[in-house]
């Protein structure tokens, strides 16, 4: 009865003992380590960013941006454009994505498996690939330089179709509708026949079943899909930069890029904070919607029996529309890019084909003597740097994923676990370009004894790791969730130390998930433009940034050729990962 008296619980000795005992628990040790790393990667840069915007003495950049003669141009105009893009992309993505999910999951449309596969593909191509393909077809002579296929064929493409809001929205929708598709298809699949048949047994009509049972189950996924597409539209940089900037169509991200690249860093930082707030609000709402309470809709992947709706004579028209959309967002742009990288003159896809832009030696008569991408040392350098960056960030992320997953899953319910989880998902709320600005704010100048990291490869790795944290955390969480705590405790009882348990039990069992997560991170890094565009310098050039420069300077074929290379690397990595996964776990083969 005298076991734990309140008096004992408050003495310093007891508290010290509690602390010492806590420090011996692996969850606490790893948790503190991960917290420190996340602090450096996320919390400190964010704090510094905000600090930079308020510590300038002469004329606050906040006033410049929000309430000055410039602010209409600098903030309010781009804000309206940004929100318009987000709203249109969100709505259009829901219409396309949810419609296609319905067609694939709920009807007897022929070839719906293939459509389902194609609809999940647009992510394979980076968003700037779609923009470049669009240019190759629809570009008119408004800003001079090369023109697209249609103009060459004598079709007068109007400005609104070549530049600005309309193409930006179309391309972003083409890129992000598959987000909505994946979410809604999973939710629809969870509505198995039992649910709807139970309603029909209760006497409900077909329409009543759709409105009363199916829709409520799917609604959270639809709303979450809308918000995700909205947020992605708001934060995308590459597409408005390529199709908007030449005609002064500005969104917050292009404004932010403009400010920082022209040396108005403090205004850029203010814009970064504002962009984070806009995207953060939307994504915060989205994560609440997809959060724990509603997870039944998305987790129950296998729905069991489903009754499909017979489309009758409507089946072929529906399939044609869906297949058309899928082809237009995946196969067609890939083809256009590949072909136009072979065209002697941009826009003439049917004309003379040449490998000059791939392998040609310097020829003063073509593209100011630029060599083909496969023999251009600058591009080969960039390719090596890009691959190195992808691998480094993927390796760091996998390591962090292990730590984050361990702390979040094993420490479930503790303050440490929730803190780590929250911090690792924070970068999800920060658009890439704003995160880039954040890293300039923190590492642009020396910190104490540390030299300024701006322009170094290390900075790219740090920023990349921070940007991909949410994916690492997701991979770590789901992987560790599948490694039962009993398996580790069985090793504890056998007397194995923490490092030994990690090496012999936890790492081998989570290798598959970590590899998959690592490859996802690798692909994201190889394709990324918005994060790195502010951080690279001529000494650390990356493929995506070179593509962006070539495209802005009018060398369409080079840009397209490099984009093809990037897409090939992405697809190759994904395929490789599948094989690795198979090889990593012989015991899982049955």
């Amino acid at each position: 009865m005298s076991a734990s008296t309140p008096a004992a619980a408050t003495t310093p000795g007891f508290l010290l003992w509690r602390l010492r005992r806590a420090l011996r628990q692996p969850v606490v040790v790893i948790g503190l380590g991960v917290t420190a790393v996340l602090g450096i990667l996320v919390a400190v840069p964010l704090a510094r960013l905000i600090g930079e915007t308020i510590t300038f003495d002469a004329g606050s950049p906040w006033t410049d941006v929000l309430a000055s003669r410039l602010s209409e141009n600098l903030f309010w105009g781009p804000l309206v454009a940004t929100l318009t893009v987000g709203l249109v992309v969100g709505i259009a993505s829901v219409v396309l994505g949810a419609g296609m999910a319905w067609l694939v999951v709920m009807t007897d449309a022929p070839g719906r498996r293939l459509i389902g596969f194609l609809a999940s593909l647009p992510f394979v191509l980076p968003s700037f690939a779609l923009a470049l393909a669009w240019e190759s077809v629809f570009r008119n002579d408004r800003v001079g330089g090369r023109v697209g296929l249609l103009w060459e064929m004598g079709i007068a493409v109007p400005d609104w179709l070549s530049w600005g809001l309309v193409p930006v929205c179309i391309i972003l929708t083409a890129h992000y509708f598959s987000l909505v598709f994946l979410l809604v298809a999973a939710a629809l699949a969870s509505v198995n026949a039992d649910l709807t048949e139970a309603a029909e047994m209760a006497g409900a009509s077909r329409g009543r079943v759709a409105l009363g049972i199916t829709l409520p189950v799917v609604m959270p996924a639809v709303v979450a899909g809308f918000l995700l597409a909205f947020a992605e539209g708001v934060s995308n940089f590459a597409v408005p930069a390529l199709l908007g900037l030449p005609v002064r169509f500005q969104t917050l991200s292009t404004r932010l890029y403009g400010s920082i690249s022209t040396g108005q860093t403090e205004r850029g930082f203010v814009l970064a904070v504002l962009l984070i707030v806009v995207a953060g609000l939307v994504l915060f709402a989205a994560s609440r919607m997809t959060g724990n309470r509603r997870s039944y809709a998305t987790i129950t992947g296998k729905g069991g029996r489903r009754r499909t709706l017979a489309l009758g004579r409507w089946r072929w028209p529906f399939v044609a529309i869906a297949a058309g959309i899928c082809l237009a967002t995946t196969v067609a742009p890939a083809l256009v890019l590949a072909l136009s990288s072979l065209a002697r003159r941009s826009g003439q896809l049917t004309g003379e084909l040449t490998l000059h832009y791939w392998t040609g030696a310097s020829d003063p008569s073509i593209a100011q003597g630029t060599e083909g991408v496969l023999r251009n040392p600058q591009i080969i350098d960039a390719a090596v740097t890009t691959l190195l960056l992808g691998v480094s960030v993927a390796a760091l992320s996998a390591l962090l994923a292990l730590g984050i997953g361990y702390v979040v899953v094993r420490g479930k319910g503790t303050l440490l676990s929730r803190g780590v989880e929250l911090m690792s998902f924070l970068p999800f709320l920060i658009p890439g370009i704003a995160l880039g600005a954040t890293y300039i704010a923190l590492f642009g100048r020396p910190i104490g004894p540390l030299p300024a990291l701006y322009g170094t490869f290390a900075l790219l790795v740090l920023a990349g790791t921070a940007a991909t944290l949410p994916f690492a955390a997701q991979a770590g969480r789901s992987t560790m969730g599948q490694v039962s705590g009993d398996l580790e405790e069985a090793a504890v009882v056998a007397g194995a130390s923490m490092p030994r348990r990690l090496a012999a039990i936890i790492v081998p069992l989570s290798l598959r998930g970590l590899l998959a997560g690592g490859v996802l991170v690798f692909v994201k890094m190889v394709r990324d433009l918005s994060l790195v565009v502010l951080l690279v310098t001529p000494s650390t050039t990356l493929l995506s940034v070179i593509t962006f420069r070539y495209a802005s300077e009018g060398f369409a074929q080079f840009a397209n050729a490099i984009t093809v290379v990037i897409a090939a690397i992405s697809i190759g990595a994904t395929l490789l990962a599948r094989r690795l996964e198979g090889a990593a776990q012989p015991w899982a083969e049955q």
Partner: protein
Amino acid sequence: MSSDSSEIPAIEFVALRKAFGTVQAVDGVDIAVPAGSFLVLLGPSGCGKTTILRMLAGLESPTGGEIRFSGGVVADGTRGTVLPPGRRDAGLVFQSYALWPHMTVSGNVEWPLKVARWSSVARRQRVSEVLDLLDITELAGRYPGEISGGQQQRVAIARTIGPRPSILLFDEPLSNLDAKLRVEMRSELLRVHRATGATSVYVTHDQVEAMTMASHVAVMRRGRVEQFGAPRALLADPSTPFVASFIGTPPANLVPAEVVDGHFWYGGVDLGPAGNTAEPSLLMYRAETLALFAADAPGLLRLEFGDATPVAGRDVVTGWHDGRRLTAVVEQHPPASAGDPLFLRFPARPQAVFAHDADAAAAIAEASASGTGIALE
């Protein structure tokens, strides 16, 4: 508390406590068992038995009291000396088996020996020894995912006894097996217990397992030990209504009786002298002490026939009186179908008498909610 003062107990709890936040999962437990015993911690889910087992293994730390192995303190809630799991000379068989899926059967058995730094020769020899003991030699090269549940269970036991622990801990090891395998594994476990000579602690909610395997049983409820003793002692002399209605196949009947003129009465039947009790009481009658008749006579209780199950040449008959279920075990029950009247004769004296208070009522509800019923595996 110690049952044998001449010998140091192999396992001893002193005022053991464990709180999770404000919840007292284990609320002051004192038990001691000698070396070689088979201690069963028995109780419904949430009674604290698994928490005790995990504290024995060292996977949880007590928040009060002590655990001693052979007299040495391994966990102490007040001063904080906690011997880590690997240094306790104890092995744990998990409810889920917790076989490492990326290691073969022999890999699973060998790994703890590696951790304990056995030489490779000794390891190889010990692995084949325990695989042989559990009759799974031919599974040595298979992965856990490729063998059946019963085989996995054997591997889990082999892995646990590999390093020759002096204490074996079992966390409801049979609950994932089907009824037939469970009976088989029960005797298998007893065989392993004898072969290793280890002191075993076994957690279960199945009183049949407790009765068949234990040398000592601790019946637990709400974090406390309700009664501690040999299985037969618990059966013969339950100290609380909870134990009485939790233990036995079928469990004993508890009849709520009023005291009128110095006699117990239930349903208009005189159940004998009440002695010096004047309060309402619970009278315990074992099912085999009740007799059933087809025709009414003075002193019999009228029942509605419920159902009858033949067991080992006898019939277990349940009937209902006033919404209360009564169970009798008889040689042969009178022909009846559901709803027919039957007549029950009580013996002259109940086997035990308990006070009938609110706690007793709650205890009976808890015991019957855990589904003791007639377990006939």
